[in-house]
């Protein structure tokens, strides 16, 4: 079978799947940053009472699945999303889609994702990829974080679609149902609602663990890590923070650079200079996150490690919280009339 499908690499898997699935139905205005911003992807949360891989539970982005959902909703594009209790019906449905020429998004676990290097294969179940065809026993895969297309045997794909544990994919398949012409007006509305929702999530969310308050809270906690956890464990915690912030998918600086790119691209639809100014602020925030990572690395490499070094690390986050708070406050006051 011949497939008319063009692989597209992205920084983050869900942004990439969203962007590329929309392209398959003729919606080509959505770039990765636009999908991320319209989907209100930027976030921060630290749940101190929860542990992931024996380290702190920290996230720099919104819940998996929401970027696709919000972006399609904003553009008024209906979504098909299906979960399965049986592996056989999951594969049957997938084949039906492919035979109908419909590439689909699949949520998968990475532990058994055979083409990933071993060092990256944790029990993380919210990875996303596109299946666009089948040749012999091999499914043709477009994984947005990869430079090129790849394949998975039917067994390998079944295994990752039915990975177990937190956020188990349960064979989940999703795709946008039908394409339509997206007008500039609709783009403007989508951008506006994406930004407003992100403002709410970052500066108006209740409680102290999420949004900019969560960043400052994490900064204060980090200052206590050395005494509370001991140097070795504190080092591991900082390493986990850096991985969540910088590892594949973030585009660097805990998604802050992608968000800055989103604001810059939004200016093409909304020529309001505030967008460009705040874009610069997020570039600055991303750079600060990167500087904090360098400080953290100094500690977990054992080059530095006094209490004063932890204090500097914590202060970085407290300062970042201030910068991002001001940025979102500016966005919240933005005049959306043209």
């Amino acid at each position: 079978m011949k497939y008319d499908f063009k692989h597209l690499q992205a920084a983050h898997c869900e942004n990439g799947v969203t962007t590329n699935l929309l392209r398959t139905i003729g919606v080509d205005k959505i770039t990765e940053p636009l999908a991320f911003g319209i989907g209100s992807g930027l976030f921060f949360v630290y749940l101190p009472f929860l542990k992931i891989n024996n380290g702190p539970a920290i996230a720099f982005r919104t819940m998996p699945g929401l970027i696709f959902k919000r972006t399609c909703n904003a553009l008024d594009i209906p979504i098909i999303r299906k979960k399965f209790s049986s592996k056989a019906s999951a594969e049957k449905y997938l084949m039906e889609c492919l035979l109908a020429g419909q590439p689909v998004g699949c949520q998968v676990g990475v532990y058994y994702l055979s083409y990933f290097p071993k060092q990256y294969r944790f029990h993380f179940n919210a990875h996303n990829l596109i299946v666009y065809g089948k040749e012999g026993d091999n499914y043709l895969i477009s994984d947005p974080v990869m430079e090129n297309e790849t394949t998975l045997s039917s067994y390998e794909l079944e295994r990752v679609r039915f990975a177990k544990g937190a956020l188990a994919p349960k064979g989940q398949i999703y795709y946008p149902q039908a394409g339509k012409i997206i007008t500039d007006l609709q783009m403007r509305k989508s951008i506006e609602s994406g930004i407003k929702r992100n403002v709410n999530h970052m500066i108006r969310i209740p409680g102290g663990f999420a949004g900019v308050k969560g960043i400052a809270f994490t900064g204060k906690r980090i200052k206590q890590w050395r005494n509370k956890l001991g140097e070795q464990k504190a080092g591991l915690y900082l390493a986990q923070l850096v991985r969540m912030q910088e590892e594949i998918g973030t585009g660097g600086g805990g998604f802050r650079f992608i968000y800055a790119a989103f604001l810059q691209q939004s200016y093409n639809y909304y020529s309001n200079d505030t967008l460009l100014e705040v874009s610069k602020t997020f570039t600055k925030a991303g750079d600060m996150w990167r500087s904090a990572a360098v400080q953290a690395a100094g500690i977990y490499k054992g080059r530095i490690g006094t209490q004063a070094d932890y204090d500097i690390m914590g202060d970085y986050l407290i300062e970042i919280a201030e910068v991002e708070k001001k940025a979102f406050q500016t966005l919240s006051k933005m005049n959306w009339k043209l």
Partner: protein
Amino acid sequence: MKKEDIPQDDGALNIITKEVVYAVDESGKYTTELSTGWEIKTTALNLAWEDIEKRIKNAQNKVILNEASPLLYFIELRLMDISILSAYTGFWKWTIKQHLKPANFNKLSKKKLNKYAKAFNVSVEELKTMKAHEV
């Protein structure tokens, strides 16, 4: 981040792909570039793996000293925890905690051992003797 500041260090991922990074060009416009990795995060990932190796070794010692059943070793080896193992086997977490005790583990039926072996991708014989292969 400026385009020219994008690090091109060694990383575990670059055997299969370079990754997309967002940065600004000379005119301040955002663009994407491919990066082979950043030493800062490579070290973070290596550190996580050193810790995992340590945990596996500790678990192995505990099993040898008869302080824990081989389940502990395989939980660490397969990067699981009790919740994940519970999801793969269908056993209650409380039940798994019981089976972590060598005396209880040794009394397990063939059927239950099979469930664990399947979850860890090993044979029952390998499960009992802590032999393992890559998955």
